[in-house]
């Protein structure tokens, strides 16, 4: 999984029927220190996350194991809202 910050939302009217009523969020991956890295991605929200929050995103086929995502065409899902990240000194 990766840590990411939610930076926006996506509105899509025409989409796969299995995506109907799922919230889509734009996320920017970040390192454990909060520094942004890599490309933006769109993830489906399963935990009521919102813009500005730090979240945990699961990618690939595992995203379909998130609650309510069985057989849905998704490859990234927000599965947790991060409270804190603690990193050992020096790392």
């Amino acid at each position, binding site marked *: *999984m*990766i*840590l990411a910050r939610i930076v926006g939302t996506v509105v899509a009217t025409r989409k796969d029927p299995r995506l109907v009523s799922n919230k889509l969020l734009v996320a920017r991956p970040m*390192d*454990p220190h909060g520094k942004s*890295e*890599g490309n933006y991605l769109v993830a489906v929200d*399963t*935990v*009521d996350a919102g813009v500005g929050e730090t979240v*945990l995103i*699961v*990618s*690939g*086929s*595992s*995203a379909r*194991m*998130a*609650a309510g*995502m069985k057989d849905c065409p998704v490859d990234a*899902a927000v*599965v*947790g*809202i*991060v*409270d*804190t*990240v*603690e*990193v*050992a000194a020096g*790392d």
Partner: protein
Amino acid sequence: MQLAKVIGDVVVTRKDDALTGIKLLVLQPIGADGSNVGRTLVAVDAVGSGVGETVFFVRGKEASFPFYPTEVPADAGIVGIVDHYDIDELTN
């Protein structure tokens, strides 16, 4: 599978129900000589590892297999704690 160092932990209160009770750790993948390789990631812990340990982990859907039959939404999971490893190329 890949070698990594556990460098931190993540606290997540609001999360997918299937993740309840599972420890989430921050991993830094490492190379043969122990140097950092690539980006850090968050992995579920299936073996009781902790910060500072060298571990190996799986990527992909297989990360959830240790928790079977629960379908844990995880794409990286720690499956072993490394006692030591030897690489001939480095010692010769």
